[in-house]
């Protein structure tokens, strides 16, 4: 049977935690990219206004 997140089997807890950790790292990366985009827009806007 395929592992499904949220399953209560002990062997699945590890894969749940790994999936969650990878997900968290991707969310961190997404926020950093968005912040960099904001910085870029801010710099351009200040140059133009």
């Amino acid at each position, binding site marked *: 049977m395929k592992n*499904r*997140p*949220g*399953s*209560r089997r002990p062997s699945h807890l590890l894969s*749940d*935690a790994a*999936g*969650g*950790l*990878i*997900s*968290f790292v*991707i*969310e*961190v990366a*997404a*926020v*950093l990219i*968005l*912040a960099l*985009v*904001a*910085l870029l*827009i*801010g*710099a351009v*806007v*200040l140059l133009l*206004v």
Partner: protein
Amino acid sequence: MLIKPVAEDFRVIAHSMGRIFVVVGLAGLVPLAWATVGREWHPFSSFLLMIGIFLLLGVIGLRQPTSDRLDWSHGMVVVALTWLLVPLIGAIPFVLSGHWGGEIDALFDAVSGLTTTGLALVQDLDHLAPSLNFWRHLLHFLGGQGIIIAALLVFAGGGALTLYLGEARDERILPSVTSTARFIWSVSMVHLVLGVTTLGLVAWQVLGFTLPRAIFHGLMIFFAGFDTGGFAPQSTSVGYYHSAIFEATAGVLMVAGAMSFGLHYALWTGRRRAVLDNLETRTILSTFGLTMAMTLIGLAVTGLYTHAVGLSRQGFFQVLSAHTGTGFATVPASELATWGGLAFGGLALAMALGGMASSTAGGVKALRIGITVRSIVNQIREVLLPEGAVVGTGFIQAGRRRLTPQLAQAAMTISLLYVALFLVGAGVGMAYGVPLDQAMFESVSAGANVGLSVGVTDPAMPLMLKLVYMAEMWLGRLEFVAVFAFLGFLYAWVKGK
């Protein structure tokens, strides 16, 4: 002809309400324990009273003999009543603390907490007992994760799907509602551990807090950030920490909270391509870029920030907070009120659009915006293309789906209801002398369950405005359907035969 509800209908509703009251009563044991450890005996006694009432009502409800078969209308009534009665009882510790101006102010904060809004009428927050502060934030967690979902896990019983849908969650990630509910709690627990650890470490090592204080602040900001609530343990919100790293960490939790649990599932199972192809992801990235550009241009024009880093940091955090429906702020309400013009418009638009469907965020939601825009574009293409040309109607949202007229109509109807809700709230604000832009900002903040404020929400504001904002929070959180069904049930009770 309307059919009058019979005694069995009330017994079924009371039984389900009983389950929910027991779960909330048990959740109340956590702040009770907190008060015991901290020797906060005044809050301790008020928590004891609140838990007693929850458990008493819970046991009375559970003792109702019932076939336990919830139909659609029962489920909707249970959900609508839950979001009314839980704050009513949950406000007891607030009333007894003396930190709120009266019963209505305490109820306002309890409604704001449970609906994950974050507008607050608490006074002298910086000296509030930690256990009471904990209860404020725990209300965010209960409301954001869904009391119903918690109750489903404790009492997996009949009518689970109806209750789940009534709580404005229309996406079943796994085949059964119970396994979906379990997955939602798994996501929360992983973020709880990672979020509190990161926030706590930053507070402890970078900001110099003592370890217990760092953990306390980490936990509170996690509850309010991940559940897109917006309460904060200090009166100056996230601005209290004066730390870009702390703001970024809170930002990660806000983004995670505003993501649909379907997208979390795709990330967890390694289907990252599905995340990028998703209609909601594309919509929210577009609207986030648009509202951020609006806000930054507006801020630059006002001349409040003359350096790119300061401008981007303040603009980015406030837009992220608004778009995810969180309501954290790094600038005081009085300063936010001076932003004006395009920056104000950008923030208000971000609040109104909100996060993703089936997330803890409020607002119209990216899915509805995406469907509405796609539908309008398709209609324009049908007009422009030669007769007989086929216009593609597919989109990706938890698999490939077809954009049917019914789907577009449903999305537009709810979107219009949100616009009407915002306008009514703004109209009442204006009737009490609040300027148009501020009245609209505050109304959108309440109706979209955000919590950013320009200072209109204040203990001294008129009673009617408090009641209207509470109604907005309730309607906005339940996305109208459960509330309309509840009102229909009441009407049938009075007028039915």
